[in-house]
């Protein structure tokens, strides 16, 4: 038994050893608000995943990016004052099953997106671009808000999104499909005309302490959900969802 405990301890300490912290600047991320950091952020996530996991830290500044995909055991921390600025070009949002998204996780686990920072979807610029593309027929993307989202989680588990302020979102703030054990906590969501959280076919999804500053629909529950918990989450008029 003692031996066993020791092994557990060893495993835990190994894990801690590997769960390292990396600053965004190490990978050439620029906080000037105009440099598109997609390549650097994706390389950072892949690199940290390869090294066994850890956290990518963004400090105060504005980090422009297109879509990137999350990997298991790699977390992102947006410290107070850090803004992850979504590109205003819809093609910078990757397409998955006909839906586009800025941050995607497909088949991943054990990820946190946390901190007091901001994710800004630049909704107005993005809408302008989308409208122009639709007029020319250059894009096949419906105008359903859930078809373009900020965070898109599919077939993933143990995902937490905590403390972030989400501004000017393109459509849906988060889209959860076939996931398990997903927590949204302490978010401040400002998404006029959009959806706060869209959940389908998922188990154990928790919404806790979320404030919807402006929203069309705070929560959309589609088919096949089990164990969805809502606690202490309010709309701008003070009503609970």
């Amino acid at each position, binding site marked *: 038994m003692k031996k066993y405990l020791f092994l557990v301890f060893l495993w835990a300490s190994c894990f801690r050893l590997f769960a390292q912290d990396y600053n965004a600047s*190490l990978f*050439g991320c620029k906080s000037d608000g105009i440099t598109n*950091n*997609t*390549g*650097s952020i994706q390389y950072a996530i892949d690199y940290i995943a390869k090294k066994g996991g850890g956290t990518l830290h963004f400090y105060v500044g504005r980090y422009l990016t297109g879509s990137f995909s999350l990997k298991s055991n790699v977390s992102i921390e947006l410290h107070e004052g850090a803004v992850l600025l979504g590109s205003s*070009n819809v*093609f910078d949002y990757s397409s998955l099953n006909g839906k586009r998204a800025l941050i995607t996780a497909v088949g991943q686990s054990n990820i946190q997106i946390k901190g007091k920072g901001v994710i800004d979807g630049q909704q107005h610029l993005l809408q302008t671009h989308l409208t122009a593309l639709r007029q020319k027929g*250059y894009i096949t993307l419906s105008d359903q808000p859930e078809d373009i989202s900020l965070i898109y989680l599919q077939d993933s588990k143990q995902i937490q999104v905590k403390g972030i302020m989400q501004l000017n979102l393109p459509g849906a703030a988060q889209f959860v499909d076939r996931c398990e054990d997903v927590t949204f906590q302490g978010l401040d969501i400002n998404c006029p005309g959009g959806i706060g959280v869209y959940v389908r076919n998922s188990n154990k999804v928790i919404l806790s302490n979320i404030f919807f500053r402006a929203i069309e629909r705070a929560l959309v529950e589609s088919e096949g959900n089990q164990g969805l918990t809502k606690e202490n989450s309010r709309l701008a008029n003070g009503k609970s969802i």
Partner: protein
Amino acid sequence: MKILPIFLIIIQALTFRLAVAQDYKAMDFGINGDGQALNTRSIQAAIDYITNKGGGTLRFTPGNYVTGSFYLKSNVTLHLEQGANLLGSNNPFDYHKDTVVNWQSMIYAIRQHNIGIVGKGTINGRGFQTAMNALQNVHKGIVQDELKLDRLREWNRPENIYFRECKHVVIKDITLRDPGSWNQTYDQCEDLHVEGIYVDSKSYWNNDGIDVVDCKNVVIRNCFFDAADDAICFKSHDANAVCENVLVENCTARSSASALKFGTVSRGGFRNFVVKNLVVYDTYRSAITFAAVDGGFVENILVDGVRSINTGNVIFLRIGDRWSKGKKPFMKNITIRNVYAEVPANKPDLGYSYEGPVEDMPRNISPASIIGLPDHKIENVTLENIEMVYPGGGNALYAYRGTDPKSLDGIPEMANAYPEFSQFKELPAWGLYIRHAKQINLKNVSFRIKNTDYRPTIVADDLEGGVWDFKSYLNGQVLKDNFHLHQSKEIKTN
């Protein structure tokens, strides 16, 4: 009965043209020419859209379009208007390393057909800064590279263009500049047409002007190349493939390496080439280098019309045995005619960015050379209507190679060395040195020097057969006893 198939062909040609005629504006896809926005994904989205619609032209109006790696697809042509600049991102992480070619590039096309890049605009890789940034990433420890010669390996730096296994490729009128590695590679492509392009490629190490690798049916015409590495370069990467049926016409080249080169990687071979009206200037190494050092062959080559000014060496033909892996190399049936060449006393590429390296010293001015191996002789080479002007002044106290048997036999074979005209250091002739060859003919060839040289004009060693009609001059005075034969036979001189 016969009419139907012809009719079908006409119809097919028509629809093909109609598809190509469809014009799309880059800006309509949100591709932004402000010099700041990264357009990688929107350019890719536009190309994907056009190819899915059956093809067309993606047109870039004047502006600065920053991008990382993207893929050109079948039936899509990029049209860069004059003033439209496709700029390479300076972030190395914006580039992809394609898994088929295992090399970084800005524009890829892999197994596509009917593709092109045309117009008077520019593709500017901005490769120096990108290479510097990539170097920083290695120093930070987040990217692995062996850093040969203190630089990232060439496959870990982006080229401007890398096309592989494509058919019907047109590259026309554009300017290509400042890549991080080679400029443009066409690898195992068929029907490649390169015309009227301007290449300025001196931003960093390995900046070849154009690399045509194992391609069939190639035309390179009316182009200008200024490159820090080989300017017009044919390669054969695949032992089972060949570079063949090539026309190079009316081109001008400047290089800190060789102007026209076969090799260095030369595993398969090169055959059926016609090179016409080539102008070479300010070039550090050879105007013409044909190297078969990796088991490949060179055959049926005609070079007709070369003007080579201020260029370090005129001709270097070489069989080596570097990465042959048992494959037998050969080089035969080569005609080089109508050549005027001036070789300078000083470094020809002085002052250019990324000058060629001063190496293989001490050495007086090197002669044109035709050098095979004892078991693999260069065969049937004709040099016709050629005038080579050398500075002369070879100083035996500085570097000396005599014509006595011991000295000549003492020249190393260097079979597995990197082939370069200067590799043997001092050679025993000032005009032409031949070794391990068969049937080398000179028709109306003249060699000139301005100062006396301690060496004879021509030295042949292990040459079997040849008809020589040549003269050599010192300041206009005919030189006598101007050649030396060693272990050679059946040479007829006039």
